[in-house]
């Protein structure tokens, strides 16, 4: 076998994993790898700051259902990835982060651009590797992709010293079958527990399904729909579970939690059986739930055994993949109608309607709730909306309807501002061959955290539309300050400079619009959608519009 340069071998290994794009930023410790990129079919997308690279990979992964890849050099490049890796970890998104490292002999000497990145990211990577021998590269890269994408997905980091990249290796791509002694994710539910769950489902008078991100990640939407319809069980989702169940379905019961719908929390509190599928029951989701008493039975289906019983006592634990376990549950004899319960829910829904109204001066400018409701009517059935973090996120999550094949991505677990632009770009790269409508929803705060990435949008003429909600405030923190300390107790939440976003967009050659009335938004939105290439619509919202 002809020896191959390790840097080329790395890219060959990525090719074997069907990697199309690597979102990265070069540097000294990656010189050999970047030299190999010149002749590789894998496309390198130069991001404008390493901090956004994992978000690109995340958006790519969520849109394509494949593993996203990001790349950064040693030291500051690697540490810049940290927040993005943690973001992917909290939302269980499969990404592989590759970092350059200083030469092996220099490790531990505080060499130039040296940082212990495997150590720094240990708390929020599913696994990580420091490659010490080039011959291990085929095995490590195969394992990294396997670990990232199977079981409960998550980020895996591979740290590769510069001199390892320069080794000549003879191993080739001989390593195919992954066999990791300590990693054998369980997919099928335990038959005994499934039997117990079936019994509970049959007996329950007021059951609900609580669907989390596990349904979306596990591609189990169809199975969930069949199971819910067969048994007439209403479905509530978490923030990460948006897209698990069509929002126009009669059994759909909204989003739970401190930032969910009021009626959803009331319904959840009234249930006597909660079938949790792939949701973590995080503090934000459960904070408005009061009645988790002993008479509420709790079936918890999750691929990660450690999630079961972590935040909530479980009566019936089922460890397994959402799609597989649902497929196991569907054929079981459970058919129930729950007519009384569904009627009760209808009353709860009517008693707690969504409130769209706003008073002056808030009503003088854009009403963001109405904006997203209208946008639901005007966008395609396969639209992807990427919400950032803040009020923009909650408005878009609650009032933009995810139906048919629409998708909603956001940083739900870590709540990382600046997520939307790079993640939407990643999603856009995943759909270059079959372009679709991709919307970025962000506020003037989150926009400014990642606005350097407009450079990538412009360079690649990505077909993304930015809905920029501006109020010259950090709205959500301001809302918290208002709720906690009272009116006027605002601190550090004013963006004391009214940026001319039109000029900024123009600088990047991005078509832009500025609107301050809902009617005007509705006029320009179809135009923006029709426009080939990126657009930005700045929507002026009154600073005092802080209600969700």
């Amino acid at each position, binding site marked *: 076998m002809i020896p191959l340069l390790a840097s080329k071998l790395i890219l060959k290994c990525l090719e074997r994993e069907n990697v199309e794009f690597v979102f990265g930023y070069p540097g000294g410790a990656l010189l050999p790898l970047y030299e190999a990129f010149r002749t590789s079919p894998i496309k390198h997308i130069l991001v404008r700051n390493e901090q956004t690279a994992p978000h690109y990979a995340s958006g790519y992964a969520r849109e394509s259902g494949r593993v996203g890849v990001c790349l950064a050099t040693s030291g500051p490049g690697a540490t810049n990835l940290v927040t993005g890796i943690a973001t992917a970890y909290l939302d269980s998104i499969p990404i592989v982060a590759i970092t350059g490292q200083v030469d092996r002999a220099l490790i531990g000497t505080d060499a130039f651009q040296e940082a212990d990145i*495997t*150590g720094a990211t240990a*708390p929020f990577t599913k696994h990580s590797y*420091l490659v010490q021998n080039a011959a291990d590269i085929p095995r490590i890269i195969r394992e990294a992709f396997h670990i990232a994408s199977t079981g409960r997905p998550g980020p895996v980091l591979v740290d590769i010293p510069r001199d390892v990249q320069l080794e000549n290796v003879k191993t080739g791509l001989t390593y195919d079958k992954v066999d990791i*002694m*300590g990693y054998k994710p369980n997919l099928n539910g335990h038959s005994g527990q499934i039997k117990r769950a079936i019994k509970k489902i049959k007996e329950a008078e007021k059951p609900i399904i609580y669907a989390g991100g596990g349904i979306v990640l596990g591609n189990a939407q169809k199975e969930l729909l069949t199971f819910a319809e067969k048994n007439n069980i209403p479905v509530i989702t978490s923030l990460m579970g948006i897209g698990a169940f069509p929002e126009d379905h009669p059994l759909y019961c909204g989003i739970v939690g401190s930032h969910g719908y009021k009626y959803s929390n009331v319904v959840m509190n009234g249930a006597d059986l909660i079938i949790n599928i792939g949701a973590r029951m995080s503090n934000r989701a459960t904070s408005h739930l009061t009645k988790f008493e002993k008479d509420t039975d709790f079936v918890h289906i999750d691929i990660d*055994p*450690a999630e079961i019983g972590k935040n909530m006592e479980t009566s019936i634990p089922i460890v397994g993949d959402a799609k597989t376990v649902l497929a196991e549950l569907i054929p079981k004899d459970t058919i129930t109608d729950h007519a009384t319960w569904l009627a009760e829910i209808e009353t709860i829904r009517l008693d707690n309607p969504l409130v769209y109204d706003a008073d002056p001066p808030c009503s003088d400018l854009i009403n963001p709730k109405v904006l997203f409701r209208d946008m639901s009517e005007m966008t395609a059935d396969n639209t992807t909306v990427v919400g950032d973090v803040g009020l923009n996120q909650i408005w878009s999550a609650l009032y933009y309807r995810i139906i048919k094949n629409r998708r909603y991505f956001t940083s739900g677990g870590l709540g990382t501002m600046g997520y939307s632009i790079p993640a939407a770009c990643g999603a856009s790269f995943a759909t270059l061959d079959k372009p679709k409508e991709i919307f970025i929803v962000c506020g003037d705060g989150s926009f400014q955290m990642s606005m350097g990435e407009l450079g990538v949008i412009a360079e690649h003429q990505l077909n993304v539309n930015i809905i920029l909600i501006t109020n010259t405030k950090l709205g959500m923190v301001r809302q918290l300050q208002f709720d906690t300390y009272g009116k006027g107790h605002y601190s550090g939440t004013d963006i004391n400079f009214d940026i001319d976003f039109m000029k900024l967009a123009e600088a990047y050659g991005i078509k832009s619009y500025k609107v301050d009335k809902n009617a005007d938004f509705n006029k320009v939105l179809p135009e923006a959608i029709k426009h080939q290439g990126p657009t930005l619509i700045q929507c002026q919202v009154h600073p005092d519009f802080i209600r969700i």
Partner: protein
Amino acid sequence: MEKKTCLSLLVENNFGVLSRISGLFARRGYNIDSLTVGTTENAELSRITITVTGDDQILTQIKKQLNKLIDVITVIELKTDESIIRELVFIKVKADDTTRSQIVEIANMFRANIVDVSRESLVIEITGTRYKIEGFFEMVEPYGILEFVRSGDTGLQRGGKILSV
């Protein structure tokens, strides 16, 4: 109710495995009483014994979180009645011509060994369960303990059962 539990782990000898395990305890706020690590009959594997304190819910979480680590192959609980759990302790006790023989006598009763002698001190090596060691400490305390070092619990299941891949 909080209790002490002894866990036995089989792990792959990979880079950073020990820091992954200790880091897990630190970041999730679990109390670690002791941790011992050593090689096994298989050069690729290490065996770790961890003693932890916590209630049932925390102990279950600890086991699950440990199992989640890719490098961890098996986690079992060493139950007192089904396992041998011992600790090695070196104790340096103040000893002069008048007290030396009394301390030696106590050490003999505990089947401990004298491993170093000087004009003012004795170093005693004792192996045993937590209870035996506590008892020994109580006995030599009046003579003056200068310093001691404890290895932390290590253990094995009784009978033919083995911890394997």
